[in-house]
């Protein structure tokens, strides 16, 4: 396996097997030091990239981690759950203002100019322009990190794919080119992504989608997904490799290797279990 990637997202956004497991995990991973330690465990297992949806804790931990480890950050923007919560609490303008005020003065100037140039589309509530504006604000706040790839949050991605709308992906690719980094796609619907984007799919350095021997979360089914993966294995990275923790990490990774995929994303549970197993064994 050439690439192992650690997945980080706010612990509140994961599913857990019990309420007490949830509280334990959320309390633990709300500490930057614990996330830092998790990153270190993943690094020792060979992970050299971190796929992250950001909150303040994850941002702080990654800023510290990148000071002394050469790992790439793959940023997933925007944090849609936080944005939707803000929308409910503050309204669209309030949610945007909250993100804007977190920026540096130069970031504010850049976003301000961009807003002026797309004002008509913003007022029309254009989906691609709105999604990219919020993404831009989150990205601008990550300037202290070495971000090498950007992805849209799955909540945005799947809605755009359902609507067959390529505009937001084109905008993401253009944004990445301007920044000199690579765009990617995280999706549970890779076949739909291929159908919607056609040849444009090649503009995206990597497509991250569920892949495991049980076919778990592989939509529409395992066979169809594997056919797509085999058509360009170096283009795909596996997600949900342990099928919700029901397959041991080693067996899961062997399966990904057999398909020749470019890498595998490991969640915190898989990293903790693999690290403990290595220490124990």
């Amino acid at each position, binding site marked *: 396996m050439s690439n192992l990637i650690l997945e980080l997202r706010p612990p*509140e956004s994961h599913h*857990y097997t019990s309420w007490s497991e949830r*509280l334990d995990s959320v309390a633990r991973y709300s500490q930057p030091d614990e996330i830092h330690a998790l990153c270190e465990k993943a690094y020792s297992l060979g992970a050299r990239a971190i796929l992250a949806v950001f909150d303040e804790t994850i941002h702080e931990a990654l800023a510290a981690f990148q000071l002394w480890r050469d790992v790439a950050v793959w940023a997933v923007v925007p944090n849609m759950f936080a944005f939707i919560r803000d929308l409910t609490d503050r309204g669209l303008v309030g949610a945007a203002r909250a993100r804007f005020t977190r920026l540096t003065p130069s970031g504010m100037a850049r976003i301000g100019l961009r807003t002026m140039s797309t004002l008509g589309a913003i007022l029309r509530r254009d989906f*691609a322009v709105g999604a990219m504006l919020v993404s831009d604000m989150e990205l601008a706040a990550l300037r202290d990190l070495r971000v090498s790839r950007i992805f849209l949050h799955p909540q945005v991605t*799947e809605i755009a794919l359902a609507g067959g709308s390529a505009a937001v992906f084109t905008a993401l690719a253009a944004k990445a080119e301007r920044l000199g980094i690579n765009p990617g796609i995280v999706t*549970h619907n890779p076949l739909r992504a291929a159908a919607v984007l056609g040849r444009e799919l090649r503009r995206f350095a990597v497509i991250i989608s569920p892949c495991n021997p049980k076919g778990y979360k592989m*939509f*529409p089914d395992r066979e169809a997904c594997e056919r797509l993966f085999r058509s360009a294995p170096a283009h795909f990275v596996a997600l949900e490799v342990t099928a919700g923790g029901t397959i041991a990490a080693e067996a899961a990774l062997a399966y990904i290797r057999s398909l020749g995929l470019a890498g595998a994303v490991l969640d915190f549970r898989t990293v903790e279990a693999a690290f403990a197993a290595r220490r124990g064994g």
Partner: protein
Amino acid sequence: MTENRPLKAAVVGVGRMGMVHGHLLSIYPETEVVGFVDLKTRLSDHLTSQGLRGPIYPTVGALFTATDPQAVFVCTPTHTHLSVVRKCLSRRVHLFIEKPLATTRADAEAILRLATEAQVVHAAGYVYAHLPVVQAAHDLLQQGVLGEVLRFTAHAYVSEVFGPKRGWFFQKEQAGGGVVANMASHLLFILGWFFGPIRKVVATTRSHASTVDDSAQALLTFASGVTGLLDTSWSMPGTQMLDYGLTISGRRGTLVLGRDRILLHLLAPAPGHEAGWSQIHASDLPADTAFDVSPHIGGEAFYRQLQTFVKACRTGTLPFCSLEEACNTQRMIDAIYVSAASGGPVELS
């Protein structure tokens, strides 16, 4: 409707849920969106920018003048459901209504009565009941794996309300209530589906952040004799999405239903199941979903919900998630509020 023609559907109300249903109807191979209805017709550009094709009309009447849907998805704020249903049933259209069914039990029963009299297929949007793992738990109970079911404990928590909130969702008159009506109702629906009609409720509710109920505890007794406790709050830290759990005890064993798995403990072997502990994980269950519209919120359940509704429309039979079942949920919601207000038990006939 013939088998090979897509079901023509319209969506009334293009808020968050309306758009989700619009997308699913667009992508599902056996449906076609013929229009949207919303007072804010200026949202047309917004819908188009998401790839949602179909004209937007200001009223149901305008929709019916322009096109001929076979089914309507009602996704407007809860307090408008009854009047929207009345307008929709000026034609014989099948009905899908987002949860909760209404703001009051009387309105919910009026909606059911109208739909029944119109002899249309109907369903309610309690989406979690369509998760494969929830359906597997239902099947185990139906098969009698636990023997006679005696009791349960249940929780439904989310981190949503920690201070004053604005919007129709937090107005009792418009949303029908707070956490009980709008979050715990998902679990109440599942409880009703599992255990049958509700018979008695004793409950307390509290408003500690918003102006509606932010938390509640309810002791529920079903006509089947099953009793149990529900604890719910949308002011619990630690969970961005609804976290629910249900532990059911029977004479022959215990079933613990979580988001992705069932833990089963049987005192003696049952057909297909050994004695002792076993686990059924979501990844062990057959998947029949072609598109996941929302990976973190059980998007496959939305697809399966639509599948169930379309199949019901095709066959002219009521699905398990019919408005009749949703009325049982509404009776629980209503009884919880009545009991909390009176401080006493509420008996239902």
